[in-house]
C-alpha cells in the first residue's frame, strides 16, 4: 500500500501567499487596462446606443465582465480588442431588446405623419439629419458598423482599429469604404 505524504502546513501557507500575490498582480494589471480603455468602452457603447445612461450601464457591465474573465486573456496586448468586442456585443444586445420593446409599443400607436425629407444641404446640421444617420447606421451589418464607429472615435488611427479588431488594414479600409458608401446612399 502506498504511503500518504502530506505537505507541511508551512508549504500550504506559502502557496496561499503566492496565489494571493498573483491575484494582486492580476488586479493591478487590470487596473491599468481599465484606466486606459474605460473611456473606449463607453464610446463604443455610446456609438451603438446613442444614449449616455445606457452606454454607461453597458460600459460598466463590459468592464466588469472583462475583469471576471481577465484570466482567460492570454495576451494582455489584446485587451483593447477584446474589450471592444465584449462592449459591442453587449451594446447590440441592449439595443436590440430596446428596439423590440419600442416596436411592441409603437405597434399600438397611430401612424404618424411623415413630412417629405428636405435636401441634404438643408438637413446637414439639423437634428433630423442626426436621427436619419442613426437609423441608417442601425441598418448596417455589424462588421461595417463596428469599423465605422471605431474609426470615428477620436484618437484612433485606422492602424489601431485594425489592431483592435484583429483584421488586416486592407479589410478595415474596404469595410469603411462600403459602410460610408452605403450610409450615403441611405441619406441621399
Amino acid at each position, binding site marked *: *500500500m*502506498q*504511503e*500518504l*505524504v*502530506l*505537505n507541511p502546513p508551512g508549504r*500550504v501557507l506559502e*502557496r496561499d501567499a503566492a496565489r494571493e500575490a*498573483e*491575484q494582486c*498582480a*492580476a*488586479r493591478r494589471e*487590470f487596473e491599468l487596462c*481599465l*484606466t486606459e480603455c*474605460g*473611456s473606449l468602452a*463607453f*464610446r*463604443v457603447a*455610446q*456609438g451603438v446606443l446613442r444614449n*449616455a445612461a445606457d*452606454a*454607461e450601464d453597458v*460600459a*460598466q457591465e463590459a*468592464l*466588469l465582465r472583462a*475583469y*471576471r*474573465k*481577465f*484570466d482567460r486573456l492570454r495576451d494582455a496586448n489584446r485587451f483593447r480588442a477584446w474589450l471592444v468586442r465584449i462592449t459591442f456585443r453587449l451594446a447590440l444586445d441592449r439595443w436590440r431588446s430596446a428596439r423590440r420593446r419600442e416596436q411592441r409599443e409603437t405597434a399600438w400607436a397611430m401612424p404618424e405623419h411623415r413630412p417629405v425629407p428636405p*435636401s*441634404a*444641404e438643408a438637413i*446637414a*446640421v439639423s437634428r433630423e*439629419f*442626426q436621427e436619419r*444617420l*442613426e437609423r441608417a*447606421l442601425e441598418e448596417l451589418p455589424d462588421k461595417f458598423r463596428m469599423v*465605422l*464607429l471605431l474609426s*470615428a*472615435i*477620436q484618437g484612433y488611427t485606422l492602424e489601431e482599429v485594425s489592431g483592435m479588431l484583429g483584421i488586416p488594414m486592407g479589410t478595415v*479600409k474596404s469595410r*469603411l*469604404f462600403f459602410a*460610408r*458608401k452605403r*450610409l*450615403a446612399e441611405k*441619406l*441621399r
Partner: protein
Amino acid sequence: MNCREVREKITESFAAGEFDLFSDVAAHANSCAVCRDFCQREKALFGSLDSGLQDMVNPRVPPSLLPAVRARMAEEPAPRHSWASGWRFALLAAASILAVSVLLTRHHPGRRDAALVNVRVNRPEAGQPVLATPAPTNVEARRSSPSHSHRNAPVSSETASEAAPEVIVLAEERKAFARFVARLPEDKDVAVALANPAPPPKDIPVEVALLRIDELQVQPLEPKEAE
C-alpha cells in the same frame, strides 16, 4: 469620361475619405455645372456624415464610470492567474478520492460488505464508537484501561462471533473523516499530497549470510540416572 462615370468616381473618392479629386475628375466637374453641383452636394453629405458620426461616438465620458466599475470590482473575487488551475485541482481531487477508495477496497478484499453491514447494525448513540469490521472472539479479553475504556465498550454479540481483525471507529473520527473527504476538493494541497505516491524507502536491504557448519557431531543423549 461621361457624367455618370465622373459621379461614380466622386462618390467613391469621398467614400474612401479622399476629398481631393483626381485631376481628370476635377477637370470634368469644373466644366460641367451638373457634375459640379453633384460634387458639392456629395462633399456636404459626406462631411455631415463624418461630423455626425464623430458627435455620436465622442461624447464626454461620465466621471462616474470608472469609480462605479472599481466599486463593483471590489465586490468581485480577484481574477485567477490561470484559468486551468481550477479544473486541474478539481481533477486531482477527484483522482485522489478515486485512488483512496481503490486502495481501501484492495486492502479489505471481500470484507467490504460485512463491514458495511456492521456499521449499519451498530449505529451508536452520539459519541459511541462504531465497529467497522467483524470483531474477533477475544474482544472481552482485551486489556481495558480508564483512558481507553470507550474503545472496549459495547460489542454486539452478532459480530463477536466472527473471527476477524477488528477496527473500531469512533463516531467523532468517522465524522472527522467525512468532513475531510468533503473538504478534499477545496483543500488542493491535501488532494495533491494524496495523489502523489510515497517516496521509495531509503532502508538498505540487509544481507543474510548463510550459516556454515563445518563439523557436526551427533551424540546419543545420555540416559538420566534414576535418583
